[in-house]
């Protein structure tokens, strides 16, 4: 803290500078824009000085890495200890193809797997369902039953790898399949490491792969929390995701506000279900977007950590420091990529990745330059990975934790983002919490307004996107994009038919009926789902049973 007298001096000096220096220049050479703003609409001043952050108490609001409120990071050494995990999301086609890919990655020294599932799997349809037409294996691997899961992890020791699965509405079923595969390998559940995304609330507002209404969905999530805290203690039971909220058009402030509001909803639901906060909260993790506005993004990550720590400590009375630590994965912004002059995306991704690293992320996925056009090719994926490695090994930004701390601008921005995000959370609380605010369409509406504003700014030229609305060139259409083999759908259908022939159909029926009964009551559904999975009931069959009891979510359209 600077003493009062010095501060007064700075303030006076700044006013002098404004009149004697800046105004004089501006009167002759006007600034580029009438007003300067971050992407969240936060006004950016002509200059920042110690005066702007004089009300920020260092020890209380900033502190030290590894200590409350974790503004400067969750570990004491940060990247001086070890770099973030460089984790690229992958998966396509059949379980057989993906298994080959996984084995290759493991042979190259990778210890973590990240599984992308195709859309029918994410929405609980078997590959032979009419709704699955044209979608099987397209954006990820198709999993219809335990049989596919056995193939996917064939020859991969599940006690040795950590597996991240991007799965939400049917997360309980896929987790059950993973546990069942482990059982067959002789690996007990308490040895399993990994993450399921399991964040249904953001599906309703942004990502769209929901199945059941909010109430039963929250039940499934707390069932997983409870089950894992007993039997799969090393599993990260949820990855509360702002990534897709941002992709849907939210601003930086909205991204963390809505994500944290969802986080609050999960914690409340778990506490309501009788769990102790320190039992499950250390297993909560987050997933954010890294966008182009470098300083605003860094400030966003810092603000999010500080907010979560405060929420867990003050709102939920968490005692275990691990419950207050926000650990997060980051992915660079897919929506910021352009189809025009795709090589420019490499530079965008670099800036975004830098923001994530300066913001103290625990793991990072960098997008590939061609993702506005199709799934990335191998070459593009390699450049994306190299981008992370160059930042880690060459840029020097990893040598001290939170290097932007103390920047008048970044500290002020961190504070302002926190303030605005808390205002949103207050509003959502007043509406009755995130689930209710989603049912009312409030969050969706806010995101859409931002998305539409962003688009209009681009079209009016107010916001410049290089190569898109300025500095355009005539281009040849890109060649050599990745294509998924259309035969996957047929192959999957054949496998389902085979499974249905070979399994004990009487047992399947019995377990599904038992699951139905459990769903009607209040039991934890995990054991019942696991029973059905072990008998090779398909993903679609299990989901259908739950659909018959829970109903399906009706999308709130507010335009």
């Amino acid at each position, binding site marked *: 803290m600077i003493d009062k007298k010095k501060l007064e001096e700075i303030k006076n000096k700044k006013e002098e500078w404004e009149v004697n220096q800046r105004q004089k220049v501006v009167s002759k050479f006007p600034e580029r824009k009438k007003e300067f703003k971050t992407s969240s609409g936060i006004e950016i001043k002509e200059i920042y000085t110690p005066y702007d952050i004089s009300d920020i108490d260092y020890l209380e609001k900033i502190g030290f890495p590894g200590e409350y409120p974790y503004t400067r990071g969750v570990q004491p050494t940060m990247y001086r200890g070890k770099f973030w995990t460089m984790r690229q999301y992958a998966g396509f086609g059949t379980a057989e193809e993906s298994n080959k890919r996984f084995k290759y990655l493991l042979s190259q020294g990778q210890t973590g797997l990240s599984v992308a599932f195709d859309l029918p799997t994410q929405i609980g349809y078997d590959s032979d369902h009419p709704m699955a037409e044209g979608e099987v294996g397209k954006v990820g691997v198709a999993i219809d039953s335990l049989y596919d899961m056995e193939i996917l992890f064939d020859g991969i020791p599940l006690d040795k790898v950590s597996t991240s699965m991007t799965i939400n509405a049917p997360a309980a079923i896929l987790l059950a399949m993973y546990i069942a595969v482990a059982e067959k390998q002789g690996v007990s559940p308490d040895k399993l490491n990994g993450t399921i995304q399991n964040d249904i609330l953001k599906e309703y507002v942004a990502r769209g792969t929901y199945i059941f*209404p909010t109430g039963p969905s929250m039940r499934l999530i707390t069932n997983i929390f409870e089950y894992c805290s007993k039997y799969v203690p090393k599993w990260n039971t949820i990855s509360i995701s702002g990534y897709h909220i941002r992709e849907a058009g939210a601003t930086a402030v909205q991204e963390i506000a809505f994500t944290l509001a969802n986080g609050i909803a999960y914690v409340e639901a778990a506490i309501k279900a009788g769990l102790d906060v320190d039992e499950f909260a250390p297993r909560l993790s987050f997933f954010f977007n890294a966008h182009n506005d470098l300083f605003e993004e860094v400030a966003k990550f810092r603000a999010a950590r500080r907010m979560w720590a405060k929420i867990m400590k003050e709102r939920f009375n968490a005692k275990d420091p691990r419950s207050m630590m926000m650990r997060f994965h980051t992915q660079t912004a897919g929506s910021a990529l352009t189809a025009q002059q795709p090589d420019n995306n490499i530079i965008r991704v670099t800036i975004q990745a830098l923001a994530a690293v300066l913001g103290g992320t625990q793991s990072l996925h960098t997008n590939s330059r061609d993702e506005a056009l199709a799934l990335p090719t191998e070459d593009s994926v390699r450049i994306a990975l190299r981008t992370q490695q160059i930042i880690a090994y060459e840029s020097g930004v990893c040598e001290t934790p939170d290097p932007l701390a103390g920047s008048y601008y970044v500290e002020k921005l961190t504070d302002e983002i926190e303030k605005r995000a808390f205002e949103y959370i207050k509003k959502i609380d007043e509406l009755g919490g995130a689930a209710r605010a989603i049912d*009312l*369409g409030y969050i969706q509406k806010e995101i859409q307004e931002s998305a539409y504003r962003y688009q209009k700014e681009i079209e009016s030229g107010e916001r410049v996107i290089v190569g898109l609305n300025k500095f355009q060139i005539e281009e040849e259409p890109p060649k050599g994009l990745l294509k998924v083999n259309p035969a996957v759908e047929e192959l999957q259908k054949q496998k389902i038919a085979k499974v249905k022939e070979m399994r004990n159909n009487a047992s399947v029926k019995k377990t599904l009926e038992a699951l139905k009964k459990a769903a009607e009551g209040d039991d934890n559904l995990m054991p019942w789902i696991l029973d059905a999975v072990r008998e090779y009931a398909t993903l679609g069959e299990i989901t259908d049973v739950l659909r018959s009891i829970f*109903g399906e979510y*009706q*999308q709130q*359209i507010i*335009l």
Partner: protein
Amino acid sequence: MENLEELLIKGDKRAIARTITYAENYEDKAKEIIKKLYERSGNAYIVGITGPPGVGKSTLTDKLIKNLVDVGKKIGVIAVDPTSPFTGGSILGDRIRMQDLSQHPNVYIRSMGTRGHLGGLSKGTYMAARILDIAGMDYIFIETVGVGQSEIDIVKIADTVVMVLAPGLGDDVQAIKAGIMEIGDIFVVNKCDKEGADKTVVELNMMLDLDEKKDWRPPVVKVAAQENKGIDELIDKIDDHKSYLIESGTFQERRIERLKMEIIESIKNKLMKNIFDKIQEKEFSSRLQQVIDKKIDPYTFADELYKDVFN
């Protein structure tokens, strides 16, 4: 389209759709068709579904249709949403809640924008209802957004008006009662599993009890449309109201009222179009310059124009 009339009588969806387009755009073809087929109409029962935004009207309509289709009824739905007065455009999003049923052979759903028409209905609603009637619908549901007294035309077109409310509107029930209490023949408290539903029901009943002079005391029905709860009861109440209307003779009265409105509406539309055309003929734009230049005041100019048009 060939044999538009024949197809329309058979209830062909494409024929209905095209004829309603004619009606909506006030093309003469619509009138020609109605002229030929008028005697076939009069059999459909018209139910108005109205209420503030966000109370679940479309979901409720969807469930009503489902239950009626299951007993073999043919259903037409007209969902009216406001048109932007600034751009003339609109987003019609009610259909989304009824998408599953729209493929049923006995269901036809049409979204309409108000297109500058006041009162909550769109310009072509009367005609569209008439067309659905001719096409053999047993029930026609007309869904409008109604938040106050400015949007009560639904009363004039429907046999039974269902006013939908939901808990969590806060003090709104008090605030809007002046506007809505006379409109509803049946009141629905939707989302009745949500907190505050019972309170809304009690409040509604109290307000309805204040009005003793009516011989039809509007019932309040608790519904959870999403969960398909209370829908059968609502259908029973609609039937009760229908019986009441018939037995009390009000049915005929209401229908005559509607005919009058339909005729007046048609005259109004024609008149308005006529006036605008005529005004244009009288060099409106060029003469307007005189008003802009302050050589003449707008009211004197209006009087002059009126005389020119009608003399």
